[in-house]
Every structure is written in structure tokens, then in C-alpha cells.
């Protein structure tokens, strides 16, 4: 407590200020000091807490506000992207549906028209049967007419052959004395060959050549037929304007489909090919039993002992016990070679 002059003057001027009360008051103050300090601390802590909490609340609110604003801004920005993607997906799904539809219709059309055309095949088989009938009838007619001719020619050739034979064997004709072989007494009348023999006349050389010349039938039938060259069209009026040519237009319209390899292969072609290969393999396989691997080969292997151990005469020492030749017949001296070496205790071993 700072004492200044004013206080001192004031205190001195006051009547009956006893020093006693002042001392008591001071004593009381001293006694209450602790309580007052604690009270003050309590008040201060509570106040500090209040202040800090208010500050924290303020900070939280500030942060929340910032975050709120930021989130809104950011999501609104990415919402555009999200919206674009969603739109894209929806569009693609729509287009895919339409594409599936087109592909479905195209595949059905292509297969039904180019790969397996049921109605065309049906019509083809029916027309083929009709054509076969017609062919059969035509063949019969032609062959029938030819058959008469063939028959006639065969019979004629037969006749000619018999006549020629009669010419060559004219001496077989029967005479009054000796009946010929074709004039058997047991028959009522002589055979046909007899008649030919009687009618056979000798051929003159010139005639022979003539006959042979006539027989080599000259074929004038196959003269080559010349096709007349085609006459060009008569053009009455030249068509107006620089139009495309008719032929070009029609060619373009009637252009046949030339599918690429990708289109033309069916998409089960790999599986079909595999199946076909399997079937082909089964069909052409000559031996049907499976070739079993030698599974028990090692198990069933019989143990074959070494020749050395299984041999009745046992093994020789050479190669196991000693490696030096023991045959002394070729040695200069008759004794076997002896080796000695010095042992530790000065002795020599043999």
C-alpha cells in the first residue's frame, strides 16, 4: 500500500482514527489474505477458462466456417466433373444399347444370308431335285435315241465281221461230196454261216483298198464353229448431262458384300476349330489305346547287384586292395617289388 502525502493528510485530519482498528483491520487482512488469494485464483481460473473456451469456440466457429465454405466450393467444382462423368456413363450406356441392337440385327442378317441361308438352301435343294428329274428324262431320251443307233451299228459291224470271216474261210463251204462243218446232216437246214460262205466272193486288191478307205470314216461333222462377234448397241440419243454411266450405277448398287476377315469369322471359330480338331484326331486315330507312361518303371525296377559282389568267384584284390601289378613273370628279377619306408621309431616297414 503506497502511502502518499494526500493519504497521510487525509488520515491525520480524520478524528479518532485509532491505530487500534487499523492494526486489527490489517491483522484481519493478513488472516484473510490466503482465503482472498485462493478466491482470487478461483475467480481467475474460471475467468481464464471462460475466456479460453470462448476463444476456442470462436476458433472452432471460424474453422467451421472456413471449412464449410471450402467444402462447398470444392464439391461444387468436382460436382461438375462428377456430373460430366455420370452423363458420359449414361450416354455410353444408351449408345451401347443401341449398338447392341445394331450388332444383333447385323449378325442375324449376316449369318442368315451369308453363313447359313436356310431358305436359299431349301430352294437350292428343291430346284436341284427338279433339275435332276429333268436331267434323268433328257438322258433317257438321248440315250434311247442313241441306243437304236448303237444297236444298229453294232449289228452292222457284226454282219461285216461275219462276212469278212466268210471271205477268209471260204474253203469251208460244203461240196456235193463232203458236207461242210456248217452243214451238219443232223440239222434240218444249214447254218447261217453256210449261206455267207456260198455268197463270199474273192476281193480284188483295188477293192480292198477302197473298202479300207471307205471304212476309215471321214469325220466332217466336227467343223469348228465360229462364234459371230457381237454387234455393238445402236445409240439413238445421247443422254443429257454429265451423269454417271448406267453400268457404273448398277455396279455400285449391286456390289456384293466383301466382308473383312474379322467380320467373316464367327466368334466361336476358335472353339469350333478346337472341337473339329479333336474330332478329326479321334476319327483318324489308328490305335485307340492310350500310350501309358512308364509310371511304375522305377518302382518295378529290380535291383541288379554289381557283378563283383554277385559273381561266384568273388572279386580280385586288384583295384581295391592294391593297385600294383602282382604278375612277376616279366620282371628282371624274380622277386616282387618291395617297398620300405621309415617309421617313427627308426624302424623300416615292409
Amino acid at each position, binding site marked *: 500500500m503506497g502511502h502518499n502525502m494526500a493519504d497521510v493528510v487525509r488520515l491525520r485530519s480524520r478524528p479518532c482514527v485509532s491505530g487500534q482498528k487499523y492494526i486489527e483491520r490489517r491483522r484481519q487482512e493478513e488472516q484473510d489474505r490466503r482465503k482472498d488469494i485462493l478466491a482470487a485464483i478461483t475467480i481467475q481460473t474460471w475467468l481464464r477458462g471462460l475466456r479460453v473456451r470462448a476463444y476456442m469456440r470462436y476458433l472452432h466457429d471460424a474453422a467451421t466456417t472456413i471449412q464449410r465454405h471450402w467444402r462447398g466450393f470444392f464439391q461444387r467444382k468436382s460436382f461438375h466433373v462428377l456430373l460430366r462423368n455420370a452423363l458420359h456413363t449414361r450416354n455410353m450406356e444408351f449408345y451401347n444399347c443401341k449398338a447392341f441392337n445394331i450388332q444383333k440385327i447385323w449378325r442375324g442378317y449376316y449369318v442368315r444370308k451369308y453363313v447359313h441361308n436356310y431358305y436359299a438352301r431349301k430352294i*437350292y435343294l428343291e430346284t436341284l431335285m427338279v433339275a435332276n428329274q429333268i436331267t434323268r428324262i433328257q438322258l433317257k431320251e438321248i440315250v434311247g435315241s442313241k*441306243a437304236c443307233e448303237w444297236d444298229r451299228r453294232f449289228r452292222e459291224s457284226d454282219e461285216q465281221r461275219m462276212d469278212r470271216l466268210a471271205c477268209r474261210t471260204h474253203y469251208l463251204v460244203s461240196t456235193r461230196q463232203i458236207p461242210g462243218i456248217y452243214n451238219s446232216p443232223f440239222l434240218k437246214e444249214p447254218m447261217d454261216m453256210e449261206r455267207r460262205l456260198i455268197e463270199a466272193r474273192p476281193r480284188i486288191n483295188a477293192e480292198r483298198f477302197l473298202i479300207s478307205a471307205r471304212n476309215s470314216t471321214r469325220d466332217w461333222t*466336227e467343223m469348228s464353229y465360229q462364234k459371230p462377234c457381237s454387234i455393238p448397241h445402236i445409240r439413238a440419243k445421247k443422254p443429257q448431262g454429265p451423269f454417271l454411266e448406267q453400268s457404273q450405277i448398277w455396279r455400285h448398287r449391286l456390289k456384293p458384300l466383301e466382308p473383312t476377315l474379322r467380320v467373316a469369322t464367327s466368334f466361336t471359330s476358335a472353339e469350333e476349330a478346337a472341337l473339329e480338331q479333336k474330332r478329326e484326331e479321334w476319327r483318324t486315330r*489308328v490305335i485307340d489305346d492310350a500310350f501309358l507312361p512308364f509310371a511304375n518303371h522305377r518302382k518295378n525296377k529290380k535291383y541288379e547287384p554289381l557283378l563283383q559282389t554277385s559273381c561266384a568267384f568273388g572279386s580280385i584284390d586288384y583295384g581295391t586292395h592294391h593297385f600294383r601289378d602282382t604278375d612277376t613273370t616279366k620282371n628282371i628279377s624274380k622277386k616282387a617289388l618291395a617297398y620300405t619306408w621309415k617309421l617313427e621309431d627308426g624302424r623300416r616297414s615292409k
Partner: protein
Amino acid sequence: MTQRQLLQVLEEYLKGRMHFVQTMSELASRGQNMKMLKNANVMALLQPLMLDVDPSVQQIATQALGRLVGHSEEMAKELVQGEVLPQIVNSLPKHNNYYKKAATLVLRSVAKHSATLAKAVVDCGTLDSLMICLDEFDPGVKESAIWVLCHVARHNEDLAQAVVDAGAVPFLVLSMQEPEIALRRVAVSALSDISKHSMELAHIVAETGTIAILAQMILNPDTKLKRQVFSVLSQIGKHSVDLAELVVEAEVFPTVFICLQDPDEVVRKNVAILVCEIAKHTSELSQLIVNAGALPALVDFIGENEGSVRLPAVMALGYIAAHAETLATAVIMSLGIPQLTQVLSNEAEENYVRAATAWSLGQIGGHSSEHAVAVAGENVLPKLLQIYTSPDSSDDFQNKAKNALKNILQKCVHLPALEPLLRDSPQNILKHVVIQYSKVLPHDSMARRTFVKSGALQRIQEIKTAPGSELLEHINTIKSCFPEEVVRFYSPGYSEVLLERMEKFNPTY
């Protein structure tokens, strides 16, 4: 000795020589005398007479030699070794037509025996002299010359190439158009012998515009010419697709079927060979042939003929059916299958015809289940099985029957047709029959009923299988289509099991 006596002696000598060669010539034309003539060493006597002063002796001696050599190969070898051929060849251009004919007769007789002899003939430089002969006017000379070429080119490709290199083909084409029939025949036969060896030779023959000329000769009335014409066409068409297309483009096809009913057997066979060789290549060609009406012609042909004549027609049907499924249906609809089964069962001697029929049936039935049903309907499968299992069919026949069976079995789902196969097929075929059953039975109740009724269920359970094999699995699949009591009822030995149970059963009063 006066002049007159000398002339007389010479005349007698000439007469003697003439008499000798004439008798030799006549004797040599008959085959029975060959041995006698060989033993009498007539060849050595005739050879010097070929170089005789008098031309008629020369000709007749050459002719006699030609006939002799034509009958036996050893004499031909002797002639070649005697080195007479070069002299003949060299003197060919100089002498008259009769000599040329006789000399070409000798050459032809030597060349026809074997390839080495033909090569010897060619090595003497025959081909050039022959070209000179071909230039002559006389058709007889041309014919003999072409005949030599024919015999030379027949043996192998090199000789045919040598003939072509000598420039023979244009001459042959020109000779084909001559009026004389014998010349045409032999020219066509020479072309046939050239073109049969390889694709290049066939190309050379086809390039010169022959096919169009041949196509016009098809309806010629002469039989031997027709034989050769069809033979050439089939030799040309057999090598490659382009050549076959060339033959087809000449518009032979509907006309050719008329000749399938020709009275001569060889002509018919050659036509059938032509159809077979062309149908073999691609499905477009087969389709072309079918569109031209081949199927009724071939089917009727098979029905009316016997033996090895039918073989090419049967193979043609097989090739046609093999190419495309539509064509196989067409074959079925043209009633091909009854004819083929008739061949299979009735053909007594020729096993290779039956083997070809088995192959064709396999090709027809292998396309889809409808085809397999159509083929199996005529009781074909048991016949094929019988052929496969019988020990006296040849290996080739067995293989073909097995392939055909497998082909048809892969696709056949018609159970009444498969049933006879359950009885006595070997394991590998049985497995597939069972597989087919296991495909159909789970879905078809009528089939199951007939299966049980016909006793097939019992038979299936009697099959001995190794445990764990595929066959057992399939049998189990089939068994699982039926209720257990039914399976047990039809299991083998069930009656014994029942009897045992009955014996053990004590009736309780």
C-alpha cells in the same frame, strides 16, 4: 560264168532272201512261235538283212524284226545291245513310206516294254527323225510315228518331257483334227500319255487349245476315240484346280453324262474317272458338277454297273459329299445311299470297291446328325461294324470301315440305329456309342422307355469296364437317368440275387 548265170544266181539269192523275210514276218505275227524263233536265233539273221541292198527285203525284214521284238522283252534288249537302232533311226528320213512304217514299228515295239528301253530309243536320237516323219503327208506314217511317241511317253515323266521338248505337241494337236480316225485316236492317246505324269506337262498340253477340240470330240460315234478323249480330259483335270477349271469351262459337263451309258465299258469307266478327278479338287467344282446334273447320272451308273467299273463313281460321290454339307444333303436326296449300301452288301469280289463305298458313306454321314440318321437308316452301321471286326478283311478295308463308323458315330443321335452296335462292338467303338446314348437319354423320356424295353439297359450293365475309365463314367450317367429299382432290376445276375434272397427267407407263420 556268163553274165546270165551270174544274174540267175543273184536272182535266186534275192528270191531266197525275200522268201525268208516274208515267212519270218508271218511267223512273227503270231505269239506262239516266239520261243521257236528265239531258239533259232532268227534275230541275228534278220539284223543284217535290215541293211540289205534291195529295199523290199529291207522293209519286210524290218517289219519282221518289229513284230518279233514286240512280243518279247529280251529280244528288245538284244536289239538295243546290237546297236542297230541308231542305224534305223538315221536311215528313217531317207527311205520311202513303207520303210518308215516298218522302222517305226521296230521303234515302237522296243519302246513299249520298259522305261530303260524307251530311254535307249530316245538316246539314239529317235525324236528328231520322228518329227521329220510327222511332217509327211501320208497318214499311215504319221500314225506309226505318233504311236512311237505314245509308247515312249507312257513310262515316266522324263521321257514325256523329252517328247514335249522335241516339239511334238503342236503336231499332235494338228493330227487330232485330221479326218482319219486312226490318226486321231493315236494322237489323242499320245496326249493322254504325255499329260498324265505331271502338272507342267498337263499345262503344256492344255495351253495349246486342246481342251476345246477334245470337247467337240466327245459325241463322236467312234468308241476307241471316245475312250482316249475321256482319258486325256481326266489326266489333264487331275493335277490341279486351274486345270480342272479349264476342263469344266470347256462345257463338257452335261454332255459327258450321256456317255455314262455308252455300250462300251471302258468308255463308261473313263467318264466316271473324269467326274471323280474333277470333283476331287474343291467344293465349287463339285457344286458345278452337281448343278450340271451329275447326281442322278452317277447314282444310276452305280445301280446299273458291276465290279471295278463302279469304283470311280462311288469315289466321286464320296468326294462331292465330303466338300460341303449342302452337297451331302443333295447326295442323300438323290437316293445315293440305297445304292451305296447295295454295293457294300452285294459286291462279291472286289473288296477295294467296298472299301471306297465305306469311305463315301462315312463322308456323307459325318456332317451333321440329320446326315448320320439318313446314313444309319439303311442298316449300314452293323455292316460297317461287321467289316471292321471280321478277321478276313484287309487292313485298308478295316481302316476305312473304322473311319467311316467313327465319322458317323460322332454325329449320330438316332438311338434305334445305335442299338445294334451295343451288342458286339470292340471297346473303343462301344465307348462312343455309350457317349452318344448318354447325350440323348437324359432328355428324352420315350427314348428311355425303348432303351429299357429293348434290354439295352441290361446289356450296358453287362459291359466289363476298368474302374475309373471314361466308359464307366458314361455308363453311370446313363444309369443315373433311371430310378434305382429299375437299374437294380436289370442288373446282370439279378435273378440269382432274388433266388438267393428267396432261399434265405423263412416264411413266418
